[in-house]
């Protein structure tokens, strides 16, 4: 299994990311006390949705071809600053809103969404949706889920 880059220079017009959850199960007794069984210490099922508004049809084709290339061999997708993650500021805060100094974050938002440090791998959670809007232009929506591959 290899990683295939998402097409570059196809800038999204919207992006939505959720870091996912930790695998656990909660049991709540009749008196309201909760017992949590933790099955792992790593997040799973992070989600990423990218929307591309009114892009050229030729760029929509690149996304469709990427979907096929990734799924033919059960590869994963990677994103870079010119492919899916455009527009993210990687600034790190060293102080909070009240000027209190705190340890500087070691990773920017790009690092988080790329899931490079978590070990999660992005895969398409469904086929891209292409909606034609005008001659030569389309809206494309892609959704991804980040999975923790078994060793």
């Amino acid at each position, binding site marked *: 299994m290899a990683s295939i880059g998402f097409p570059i220079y196809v*800038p999204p*017009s*919207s992006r939505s990311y959720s870091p996912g959850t930790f695998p656990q199960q909660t049991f709540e007794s009749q008196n309201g006390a909760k017992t949590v069984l933790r099955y792992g210490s790593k997040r799973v099922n992070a989600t990423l949705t990218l929307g591309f*508004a009114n892009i050229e049809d030729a760029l929509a084709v690149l996304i469709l071809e990427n979907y096929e290339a990734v799924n033919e061999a059960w590869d994963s997708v990677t994103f870079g600053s010119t492919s899916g993650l455009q*527009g*993210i500021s990687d600034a790190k805060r060293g102080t909070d809103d009240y000027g209190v100094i705190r340890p500087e974050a070691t990773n920017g938002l790009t690092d988080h969404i790329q899931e490079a440090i978590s070990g999660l791998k992005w895969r398409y959670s469904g086929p891209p949706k292409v909606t034609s*809007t*005008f001659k030569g*232009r389309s809206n494309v929506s892609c959704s991804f889920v980040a999975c923790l591959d078994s060793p």
Partner: protein
Amino acid sequence: MGFYSGRDGELYVAGTKAAKVQSWSFSSSMAVLETTSLGDTDRTLESGVRSYSGSARLFYYVEAPGSGADSNLNTILTSAIKTGSEAGDGENDKSTQVVLKLRMITGSTDVRDIQFSVFITGVSMNSAVGEVASADISWEANGAPFGNTTLVN
């Protein structure tokens, strides 16, 4: 003298000059496609679909009243209004298109036209004491202006 006024305006309906036209107007608009993407600081656009609509006001006029002759609004009204065969008849002919040509003309050589095939989308007629009966019509064009479109020059 390069100005034009209402005196220079004419309206042709299906190739025939309409009588007693009080005013005409048309407007053009275009929907834009937004192509702004994440990271941009300014809105970017792509051209979209154009549309044309307009309106006119005509006095209701019959050249020879009592002769059974059609009014000057006959073509417009019959393209928009289709009569039924009996009261309550809900299944009748569809409204049809009509060609409207809006013209500015001064002298015999300076003729400026714009022509549309349109659907009449609104007719409002009135009759009131102390007023000449008139009709306001509104229309939307089917497709782009066609033919001799010299008004845009």
